[in-house]
């Protein structure tokens, strides 16, 4: 069915507000209700083409408005034309609201008809939520622009144009987001919608053996593989890549869907790939690979891995990332309960039991800085934590953990503050698991948080042991005070930190 009939016409300002609020409600409803359909297949190539065209139309509309915003007071016709041009880009030539501007004729069907059609075809695929979110934001933006079109003065125009611009930016979304907040960018970057027609598709749970290829699992685009043979290649769209790895001669650009790997593939992002990880680009970096040709991937597919089906039944993957994080680690929010003798849940956890039983942990309660600090983590954890720290934490805390815009997290300065303030290891765990990274708190999985803490302990010259740092709070960690008694000799004498490999 077509949804043009749902697209409200011009109204007064109060009406406009209602539409916007409605748009947000739809977005949030999707955020809470969406579930993964294990049967969802990667999208048809036509859908990819249509989504890309819709993106172009959105960006053209944004450009129309933006140019008008920058013009200043040069008469009403300029900004009215801008509003109409943007409407044309959005609704397309077959809509009643389309009017020719300056003799230009439409070259595209329009963003909204394309989004309507995509939404109709989306079923329960992962791109249903972001496409619908983009669609309702475009509808609201058209309403605002229609108001702007009837503006009697520049103030009125700018008021509505500003709102329209924000709504269109929401529709464009972010390539680094999964779900409704990803909008069209997120749908293209993290779901099968981003796979070009005739593109080669491989199992997104396995590292690629061929390139170019798109790694897809349960409708999510996990990575794009490119040949690392010196030839250039073009990405089908911006991927929002924050992690790049190498598998032999293949460069693997992981998408934001990588964070669902444990749920979709039954395992965490592979820390064993350290040797293969050539770079861990910090969140927000531009796509590291651009340029070139060969957007047409070949046609073959790897067989699915055995873990895929079981993991894919977990519906959490379509939750908004923030909700997902908080629900995936309920223990994180009650870290201090344990330290004050509250929760007993930690003792049921095998890894936390191991710490509770540890004789070393008992020693750690001592405030004697001359005592040996306990072994609370494994070398493997610390090594994995180092990789996570490098990609998520280093911008604020510094590559030597000395602190940059944020405080130090290792060395004499940190440990002095920890002793002065009486911080326990669980205090450290709680802030890492619940409050960090600053712009994306709670986004680390329980395993990632444990790995990061292991890295911090290792950098603070705590010894490694054979039992891993627990992924949940434990009573004993709440009593284990951070101490400046270093088990290992600092490799950086000035900072008082130890290197971690």
């Amino acid at each position, binding site marked *: 069915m077509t949804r043009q009939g749902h697209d409200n016409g011009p109204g007064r300002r109060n009406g406009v507000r209602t539409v916007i609020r409605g748009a947000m409600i739809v977005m949030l409803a999707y955020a809470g209700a969406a579930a993964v359909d294990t049967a969802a297949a990667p999208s048809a190539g036509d859908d990819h083409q249509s989504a890309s065209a819709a993106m172009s139309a959105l960006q053209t509309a944004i450009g129309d408005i933006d140019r008008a915003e*920058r013009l200043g007071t040069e008469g009403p016709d300029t900004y009215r034309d801008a509003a109409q041009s943007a409407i044309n880009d959005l609704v397309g030539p077959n809509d009643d609201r389309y009017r020719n501007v300056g003799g230009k004729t439409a070259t595209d069907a329009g963003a909204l008809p394309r989004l309507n059609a995509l939404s109709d075809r989306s079923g329960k695929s992962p791109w249903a939520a972001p496409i619908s979110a983009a669609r309702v934001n475009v509808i609201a933006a058209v309403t605002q622009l229609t108001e702007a079109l009837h503006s009697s003065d520049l103030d009125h125009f700018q008021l509505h144009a500003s709102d329209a611009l924000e709504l269109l930016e929401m529709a464009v979304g972010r390539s680094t987001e999964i779900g409704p907040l990803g909008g069209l960018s997120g749908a293209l970057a993290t779901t099968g919608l981003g796979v070009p027609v005739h593109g080669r598709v491989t199992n997104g749970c396995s590292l690629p053996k061929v390139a170019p290829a798109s790694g897809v699992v349960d409708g999510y685009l996990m990575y794009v593989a490119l040949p690392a043979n010196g030839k250039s290649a073009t990405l089908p769209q911006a991927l929002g890549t924050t992690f790049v790895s190498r598998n032999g001669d293949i460069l693997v650009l992981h998408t934001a869907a990588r964070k669902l790997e444990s749920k979709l593939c039954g395992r965490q992002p592979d820390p064993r790939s350290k040797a293969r990880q050539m770079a861990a680009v910090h969140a*927000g970096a531009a796509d590291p690979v651009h340029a070139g040709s060969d957007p047409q991937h070949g046609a073959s597919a790897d067989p699915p891995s055995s873990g895929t089906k079981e993991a894919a039944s977990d519906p959490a993957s379509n939750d908004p990332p923030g909700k997902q994080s908080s629900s995936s680690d309920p223990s994180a929010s009650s870290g201090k309960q344990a330290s004050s003798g509250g929760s007993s849940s930690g003792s049921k956890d095998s890894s936390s039991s191991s710490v509770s039983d540890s004789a070393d942990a008992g020693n750690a309660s001592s405030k004697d800085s001359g005592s040996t600090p306990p072994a609370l983590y494994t070398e493997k954890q610390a090594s994995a934590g180092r990789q996570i720290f490098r990609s998520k934490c280093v911008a604020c805390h510094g590559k030597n953990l000395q602190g940059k815009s944020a405080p130090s997290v290792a060395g004499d300065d940190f440990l002095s503050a920890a002793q002065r303030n009486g911080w326990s290891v669980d205090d450290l765990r709680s802030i890492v698991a619940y*409050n960090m990274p600053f712009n*994306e708190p709670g986004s680390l999985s329980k395993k990632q948080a444990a790995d990061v803490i292991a890295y911090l302990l290792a950098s603070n010259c705590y010894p490694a042991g054979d039992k891993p740092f627990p992924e949940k709070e434990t009573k004993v960690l709440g009593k284990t005070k951070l101490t400046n008694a270093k088990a290992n000799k600092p490799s950086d004498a000035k900072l008082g930190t130890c290197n971690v490999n």
Partner: protein
Amino acid sequence: MISNLRRVPLKAGKAALAVAGISLIGALPTTAMSKPVQNEDYMQAAQNNSYWVLPARTYSGNRYVKTDQIDRDNVDQLKKVWTFKIPDDDAPVESVPIVWGNTMFVTSAHDHIYALDAKTGELKWEFKDDPHVVAFARNRGVALMGRDVYIGTLDGHLIALDAETGDKVWDKQVVHDPSNSFYTMAPVPYKDMLLLGVSNGDWGGLGYITAFNPKNGDRIWEWKTVPGPGEPGHDTWTGDSWKRGGASVWSGVAIDPKTDTLYMSCGNPQPDFLGTVRKGKNLYSDSVVALDISGSKPQVKWYHQFIPHDTHDWDPAMPPVLFDGKIDGQQKPLVAVGDKGGNFWILDAKDGKLMDHTVVSYQKGHDTEPSANGNYACPNTNGGVEFNGGAYDPNTNTFFVPSSNQCGYWTAKDRAVYIAGQFYLGGAFPKLVGPNTGWFNAIDVNSGVFKWRHHFDTPANGSALVTSTGLVFTGELSGNLDAFDTRNGKLLWQYDTGSPIAAPAAAYKLGGTEYIAVASGPAGFVKSPKMSDQDAGPMISVVAAQGG
């Protein structure tokens, strides 16, 4: 314990000297201070464009400067004269330069002070503090008073240095609880006092502003921003929640010397995101307070609370700006403030009555508190109007202020536990979601409606510097310093500093040449997904017409 070794001034030549644009290394440093700064110099700042000796140029807090060289016709001739790369401190720079005589004093995030030749950028002396960072590393400038320069530090010290040499005169730890309190704001000299507000609003501290004796750091008076038992407003807090109520004094202040009235913005209440443990309006959080400071103890003249019982850290980070503006056709003394919730407010400076309210950022969820399951609200905690605020143009009766469009996904815990030296939030800072852009807003004071707006692709908190010749400057996180036509928002000039700008620009005149100076540096946690990675490091950039 902070090593004294880290608090030793370095003379020029010993420190890494980085002067780009034109090579100046090797020249002998000139004298730092031409003459001591006196009270009348502060009072006459508005009439004298040769120096910039208060954080926002004058006590009014209005960054408006009378220029006679740089104007709309020749602004495109502005070119880099010199840059100074701040060594050994790769963190955000939010400092406003203080310029007196031929010396510019700037600070780095970790409380380093650099005395530079204002004409050439040559380093005269450097003071390195590097204190323990309680929370986050920022410094917003120094005070210059008499022959001394003063800095409030990240570990709660107030330090006086000889402005001529950088040698330490005295150093005193002055915050009440150094485990959760520190200084980021530039001290403000006023009538033989140094006024300094404490930063501790997200770490379980209690806000206050202190008047210090500049001779020795002794307290002259102090005013707490959360009323204690028996004081008016105490009943706006439940139980003992007031004891860690926050309401810090993060940013600058404005002063009306004629009436000895101090205008200050008070920060958010604590725990930031858990309102159930502090029911009530939580005075004087999220308020502008006007204090009579003519006597031995400050007295509240009026207050205006913008967001009672804030649960999103949407405090009025912007320092107040005092100005005489025309509103509804009548000239009035006004005070303007913006908050992180995306609101811009204009109040009657005499009684705090609301005159205008303009929404300058995308807003959502203002009536919903963060929950354990999480919910969305806009702006996020770094959005709206930020700490550098804006400026008023008397020629067009326009207020210029940048604002940011960001949203957050917020979660609250079921309780808040105080741990010394750590966040006291009752939840988590929001996950950054939604739009990620900025506006530079020109607001008609008469109506509260936009005259024009300029859209940025990144959040905006580069403040505003208005000239009498019809220009307004602002900095972008893209690294560009922009000059707009005040009348219509036409972009007339742009200079790429190479690093994100989150600091206000300053202007001064030296040897017959007008200069514009601005700090830039790494974005820190202000960095967001759409920002470029461009970062040439922390630096000061100075431009002038035809190369100065």
